[in-house]
């Protein structure tokens, strides 16, 4: 990736973080940590890799994204707004009565959300279904899904992986947000799904481990996934929960769902704007 492109995507990721935080601060609290950790992946997907038409969100030949860790909705909305799916001021309606933007994305409210999610473990199976359907219809569109590392404790995730590899779904790319935290603390202390790379490859996936905050590395991995004609690819994103705002990062697992008041927002602004 060219240096200028990388800088541009880094800037986009910062804007996504800012948009997510601003939206959350409007409601007062929300899923901060897991929103901030996926911002770079969303920047690469929406602003560089995915074949999409924001002005025609239901375009049949679009690439799909299923945010299986649905609680990162605020980051998804911030990315979509910036990409032109809807006006940026809609972000201020996050979780407001009658909103199109509930904390967990809802495909019946907002065109462009490819699947409603919020109960962990289900989205990845929906993505497998999309990948099967794309192949069945002869579509060359690609399917992306983002799962949490804690989410991988759900058995359904492994059922999905098994069937995806078994079905040789080369059009499917699974991104794991390996931020090492869940609500109760460190994923490794609760019930460790690691080592991801070994497990995913034993299940039949091609696995690429990247710095999940480096757009160039993420994008290269997606290029490699596209080039793989044998197996579906899993990209392990090594990330930090709360990435991009130091006082939020420092809270560790406590940043999963936290309050953001106007003072917090001002502090965050120094690093994000």
């Amino acid at each position, binding site marked *: 990736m060219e240096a200028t492109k990388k800088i541009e995507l880094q800037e986009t990721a910062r804007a996504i973080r800012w948009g997510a935080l601003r939206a959350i601060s409007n409601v007062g609290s929300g899923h901060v940590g897991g929103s901030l950790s996926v911002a770079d992946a969303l920047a690469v997907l929406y602003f560089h890799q995915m074949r999409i038409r924001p002005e025609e969100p239901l375009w049949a030949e679009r690439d799909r994204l299923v945010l299986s860790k649905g609680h990162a909705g605020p980051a998804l909305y911030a990315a979509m707004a910036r990409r032109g799916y809807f006006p940026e001021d809609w972000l201020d309606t996050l979780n407001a009565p009658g909103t199109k933007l509930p904390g967990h994305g809802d495909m019946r409210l907002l065109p462009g959300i490819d699947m409603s999610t919020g109960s962990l473990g289900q989205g990845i199976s929906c993505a497998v279904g999309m990948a099967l359907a794309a192949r069945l219809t002869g579509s060359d569109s690609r399917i992306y899904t983002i799962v949490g590392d804690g989410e991988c404790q759900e058995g359904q995730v492994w059922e999905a992986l098994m069937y995806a590899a078994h079905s040789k779904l080369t059009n499917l790319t699974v991104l794991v947000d390996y931020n090492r935290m869940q609500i*109760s603390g460190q994923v490794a202390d609760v019930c460790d799904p690691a080592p991801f790379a070994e497990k995913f490859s034993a299940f039949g996936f091609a696995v690429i481990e990247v710095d999940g905050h480096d757009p160039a590395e993420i994008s290269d991995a997606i290029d490699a996934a596209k080039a793989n004609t044998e197996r579906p690819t899993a990209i392990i994103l090594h990330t930090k929960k709360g990435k991009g705002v130091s006082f939020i990062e420092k809270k560790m697992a406590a940043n999963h769902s936290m309050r953001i008041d106007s003072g917090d927002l001002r502090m965050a602004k120094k690093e994000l704007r």
Partner: protein
Amino acid sequence: MADQEMRQVFARLLEQAMEEDLRIITIDADLAKANATFSLREKFPGRALDVGIAEQNMASIAAGMTSYGFRPWIGTFCCFVSRMADQILLSVGYAGRNVKIVGTDPGITAEINGGTHMGVADVSMMRGIPEMTIYEATDAVQLQMAMPQILAYEGPMYIRLARRQVPTVWDASMKFDLWKAQILRPGKDVTIVANGIMVAEALEAAELLAAQGIEAEVIDVHTVKPLDTETVCASIRKTGAVVTCENANILGGLYSAVCEAAAQYSPARILPIGIRDRFGEVGRLPYLKETMGMTAQHIVQAALQAKEIKN
């Protein structure tokens, strides 16, 4: 106690139970912080487990642990209780295991977590499981009285709990019987049957009706299964007009239970207040009650209508 969150009260009661009975263990699925059971881990090393985000695994693990005499309490949000449907049906229910299943954030109390997190199907699903007892705490005072009886009962039970503060309607001088519906306010004109957060709403409706000269009988059906048919049907026979109020899908829950009983023993016109076979949405409680037609005013309207139909 009225100023305490339900989850705090619950966690304290569970802690006390774990102190007194070494067979009691708890299992969470990454929601111990949300349900206030996190502190049990320090107090009872090895007896307060967390299987990670794996509800189905949790249910069947609990069933397995009963094999060595343990009495597991498992917990998650009500919405994810439906996720364990088959595990609760077979590993717990069919196998007849003494597992207590705690669901929190019932129905619209999930508020800002939104539609994906609003348990609307958990009660109907649980009612469909043979031998399952279903208790929904009305307030903290009642929960405290219920706990010893829940502990004494050796069988599968679903316990539905609000997480935050709820209005107190019970007082400690009242007698609580897990298997008996409680008449909280006697009346002769219309029966209002309610559970969970809807009990307070029903009592408020009864006040409003009283102002119009209508005497409503308010019954707290904290245990929707098995239903206390005797108390409910006796009231229905007396009033002939009924409204049920629940914070769950009206299909398969309290409304269904009362209709089923009345159809056999005391036919009457029965109108439902609750989640009317629709999904939840994001919002705060006052907004959601209004949108779903679950306020005291809505109950009053339904009560008047029920009386109208009867006459």
